[in-house]
């Protein structure tokens, strides 16, 4: 991909979950199972999925908090070392409750050693204004602010070191609807102003649809569909994408009248299936599903839209 700011190449992450008496790992949780992804400069990439899909682990890998068990993460920035910041889901636990807000915002600078208090206070004031907080309240503590304001503080902190990429991990899930709208607008504005690249991780399809240029749908540690947001959501190719979108409640549309089916259990990632990961929940299963599936373009005309389902392989005779 031209002008990619970041490339993930066959990333696998697994965690030991059971150790024997000698400390050797006996069982593993396979959080990421082969993630290949490039992120273009200035875009917003949405990563959507449910529990156990690996999106949280992906955030940790992007932030450098979790080294991949296999595979490589390559940053293409001028400065060599990547400047990637993160905004967490919970504005309560992501801010130290015993630090005044101006210190929280400028902590990245303190870490780097640029630490004159007067300069830092001024910087905090400038950043606060950018995120819509009044500089008069910077001496206060996080618990004196509302959830939306705390999230603004977290965003200001992310901006403090002038990053290239910001990972947004469920940035609005803990917020009210009206506050969510304000934060989304703020994020848009900041992206325009600072040419930021966003990686937006969320389970909220509406927010992802609204904010992302491209979308990656994750299931059991793999990307099952990747492409332009409008295209993917309008005509879902992968059966899981279809299932996911079908389940999103639509304003005004009543619940379907049909009887409740067996409620799906989201799969565990201890033992990975030998074939397609989605096989036991898929209504389209057919010959060929018993093999591991690859992420491939839907058609030769749209190489950017990729699906992990052999039914779209243009090599194979049966199409959709």
């Amino acid at each position, binding site marked *: 991909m031209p002008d990619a700011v970041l490339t993930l190449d066959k990333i696998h992450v697994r965690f030991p979950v059971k150790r024997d008496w000698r400390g050797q790992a006996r069982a593993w949780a396979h959080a990421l199972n082969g993630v290949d992804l490039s992120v273009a400069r200035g875009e917003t990439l949405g990563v959507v999925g449910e529990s156990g899909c690996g999106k949280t682990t992906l955030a940790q890998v992007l932030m450098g908090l979790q080294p991949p068990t296999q595979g490589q993460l390559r940053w293409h920035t001028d400065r060599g070392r990547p400047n990637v910041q993160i905004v*967490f889901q919970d504005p309560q636990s992501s801010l*130290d409750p015993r630090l005044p807000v101006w210190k929280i915002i400028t902590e990245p600078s303190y870490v780097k050693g640029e630490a004159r208090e007067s300069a830092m206070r001024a910087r905090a004031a400038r950043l606060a204004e950018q995120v819509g907080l009044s500089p008069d309240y910077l001496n206060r503590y996080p618990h004196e602010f509302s959830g939306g*304001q705390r999230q603004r503080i977290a965003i200001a902190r992310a901006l403090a*070191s002038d990053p290239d990429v910001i990972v947004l991990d469920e940035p609005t899930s803990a917020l009210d609807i009206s506050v969510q709208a304000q934060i989304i607008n703020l994020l848009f504005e900041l992206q325009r102003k600072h040419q930021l690249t966003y990686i937006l991780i969320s389970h909220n399809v509406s927010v992802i649809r609204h904010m992302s240029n491209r979308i990656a749908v994750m299931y059991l540690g793999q990307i099952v569909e990747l492409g332009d947001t409008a295209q993917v959501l309008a005509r879902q190719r992968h059966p899981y994408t279809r299932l996911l979108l079908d389940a999103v409640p639509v304003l005004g549309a009543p619940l379907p009248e049909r009887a409740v089916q067996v409620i799906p259990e989201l799969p565990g990632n201890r033992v990975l299936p030998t074939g397609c990961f989605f096989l036991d929940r898929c209504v389209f299963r057919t010959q060929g599903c018993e093999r591991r599936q690859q992420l491939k373009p839907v058609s030769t005309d749209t190489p950017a839209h990729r699906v992990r389902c052999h039914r779209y392989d243009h090599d194979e005779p049966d199409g959709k």
Partner: protein
Amino acid sequence: MAVTPATSHLSYSLSYFWYQLRRSPMMLLGLVLIVLMCLAALLAPLLTAHDPNAIDLGNRLLPPSAAHFFGTDEVGRDLFSRVLYGARQSIGVGIFVAFVASAIGSVIGCFSGVIGRSVDRIIMRTMDIVLSVPSLVLTMALAAALGPSLFNAMIAITIVRIPYYVRLARGQTLSIREMAYVQAATTFGAGRSHIVRWHVLRNALPPVIVQMTLDIGNAILMAAALGFIGLGAQQPTAEWGAMIASGRNFLLDQWWYSTFPGVAILVTAIGFNLVGDGVRDMLDPKQKVK
């Protein structure tokens, strides 16, 4: 913009503290008792005309009276002034032990929790060894080994208290380490030293403060116990435990000798314990009014 009123932070905090106090009569009582004993200790020379060490063999073992509020001991020293001056030893020991043990213990605990791995394991197993010996026994053994004096008693009590703080601080550190704000700090390149200085110490503080306040009472009791068996402050220094020990010989007929120092220990220890409980309740997040 922010939700709380913009009055002066200090006066708001003080009046809020007073509001909390009024809702917790036990803590108020504890506070009153402590203040009384501290005043007694500080203002001892003003509160009594008698020299606590002045021997007056003509007035031995007198019962409480207007001249001697608590009576006199077997060499005629005024017990009231000895109790007042004794407060200095006891409260002094209590505060020293609490502060020093908590300071040293927390620092060790925090660093142990942050560094982790084998260093952490070694430190914790050492602490476990110390904690496996009953604390009174260990304190007495240490004090005896160091030699009988008030200072050595303080050292002994302090050393035996340190492992409690190490364990407490380490536990707090382990949970603070998992908090999102520490992860965020790691992502902008913060090293362990920064994390300890900026995040761990100040967040681990509240339970340590509570433990410290409760410990003062405990340390006072411990110092009195050592004094009772002769390992604390030596004669002629007035010390509550030693006074109770001396008074044992005269318990049947001269009840006042052991009783008043005993009551002093009781009142002081209860006072600190009540305040410690109150501080814990105040700092307990579930009690916070939304």
